[in-house]
């Protein structure tokens, strides 16, 4: 067991245990298994033993879902302004700058065109690492432009959501992004272009109450949190603990709000099959 002892020192012990580990080894949140970085990558950032899905970002999803070298990013440099000059415990403008520096991203979604098993599509993927994947003007605008692009080029739209909800620091402007994105999805739908919604952990609040729930086909990763209200708020309201598995993918499948729950390694093949059926 010498390798185990030695490797343990490399396990990142910061609070970001759900994100991709920085060290060579990481511990599975699902079963406690110690997994090597390479092994994790080969297994689509899921645990081979218990199927626990580690939270990943747009970079990983584009690699997993798109054919190598086909991704062309759009609106890459679009970034948030601070229209309300919002200050809570920290100025919003500073929060944005810090997040850009920390993540190398410009906001909580990346969009572009690519191919999936040779099928051309428009894709958008949210990044939870950027201010909790929250939707402000930039996320709303980029999703809307992706829908417009899909409509104009007659290519299907795929959106992978991972978000805590609407971004508070843009207040009512964030709220209106729910309206805007939903209107754009409706336009796409009227044009007869398929839209596939993939929900990753977590998909919450204003994102759940807009484009994430409007797919022609609704797919979620296993055990992802999906809900409108947060569990803490619901617990406060009803004054008791929530049932096990409440607001998880499997629960939503059972209640009729998803078409399927799909393991990340099957995601590309499953979406391809669906698109082959739906494409005109």
């Amino acid at each position, binding site marked *: 067991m010498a390798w185990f002892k030695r490797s343990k020192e490399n396990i990142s012990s910061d609070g970001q245990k759900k994100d991709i580990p920085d060290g060579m080894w990481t511990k599975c949140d699902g079963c406690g298994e110690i997994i090597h970085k390479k092994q994790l990558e080969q297994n689509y950032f899921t645990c081979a033993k218990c199927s626990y899905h580690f939270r990943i970002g747009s970079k990983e999803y584009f690699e997993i879902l798109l054919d190598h070298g086909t991704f062309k990013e759009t609106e890459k440099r679009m970034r948030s302004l601070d229209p309300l000059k919002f200050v*809570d415990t920290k100025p919003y403008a500073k929060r944005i700058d810090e997040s850009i520096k920390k993540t190398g991203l410009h906001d909580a979604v990346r969009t572009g065109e690519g191919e999936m098993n040779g099928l051309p599509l428009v894709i958008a993927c949210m990044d939870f690492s950027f201010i909790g994947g929250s939707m402000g*003007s930039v996320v709303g605008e980029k999703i809307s432009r992706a829908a417009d692009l899909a409509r104009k080029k007659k290519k299907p739209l795929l959106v992978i959501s991972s978000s805590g909800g*609407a971004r*508070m620091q843009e207040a009512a*402007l964030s709220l209106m992004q729910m309206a*805007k994105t*939903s*209107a754009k999805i409706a336009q796409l739908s009227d044009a007869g272009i398929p839209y596939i919604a993939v929900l990753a952990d977590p998909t919450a609040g204003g994102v759940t*109450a807009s484009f*994430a729930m409007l797919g022609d086909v609704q797919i979620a990763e296993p055990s992802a949190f999906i809900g409108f209200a947060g569990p803490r708020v619901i617990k406060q309201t009803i004054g008791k603990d929530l049932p096990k598995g409440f607001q998880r993918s499997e629960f939503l499948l059972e209640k009729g709000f998803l078409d399927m729950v799909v393991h990340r390694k099957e995601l590309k093949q499953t979406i391809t099959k669906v698109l082959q059926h739906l494409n005109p």
Partner: protein
Amino acid sequence: MAKVILDFEKPIIELEQKIAEMRKYADNLDISDEIGTLEGKVDQLRSSVYQNLTRWQRVQLARHPDRPYTLDYIQYMIEDFVELHGDRRYADDKAIVGGFGRLDKDTVLILGHQKGRDTKSNIYRNFGMPNPEGYRKALRLMLLATKFGKPIITLLDTPGAYPGLGAEERGQGEAIARNLFEMSHLPVPIIVVVIGEGASGGALGMGIGDRVMMLENSWYSVISPESCSSILWRSWEFKEQAAEALKLTAKDLLEQKIIDRIIPEPMGGAHRDPLIAAATLKRTLIEELKALKKIKPDRLVQLRIEKFSAMGEWKST
């Protein structure tokens, strides 16, 4: 009905009562000078208080327990109102009311959140917090209005969609999302008015329209000041700061180009004179509807989508 008086209303209402009492005796005594002085004073006090309301004070006015609610406005503005019930799927949600009635000469569908006035009616109305079946009832009625070519008016007044177990089980998020999707392309005129509290997705779920307006003392935002305080400041104590930061008043939203128009309220708020408030709202609705009826359905939908598409601020460097 028990009157509720807010802190900043108190000095004004006390003066008003004093003047009213003096008037009773004014026939026997010559105190008209004195009354005149007091009236000048109360006018001054009114304008200094109501022209300088903080955002948090507006929130308090929007939540005033004597403020007119959807059914009050319907009673004052709409003739031959017929309320319709149920979503045909699960239940009838009492937190949203709706039905057909006549506004001036036109039959319209009028829908709105409904709060209660006392504990009992508030429990019945779930404090104006809809479950998914409320949004689905609204959608059923809006599709019915579309089928018969009737314009739609929605009045928003909710502290939020209900965060309950059953609400999540029955797809609160999906219900709201579906309404946004459908409302964006219904080929009939839609007018939206925030009459009290416009809290988050719970309000927006009936909030897509060709004209979006707010009563002078209503608020509209992504979250309530209290919840914003608890999340961003990690304490319930910063609701005043949160209200300021959220810029959630009618004036703010007009500046943010989210609403088209502010509908003035009687001095001191709609609860001080509900009949005048309703008359102003009615006049505004008639005027806006007249303009919208001239626009062809396809064009209406196109303009509506463009209107919401323009919302937000970003930078493409």
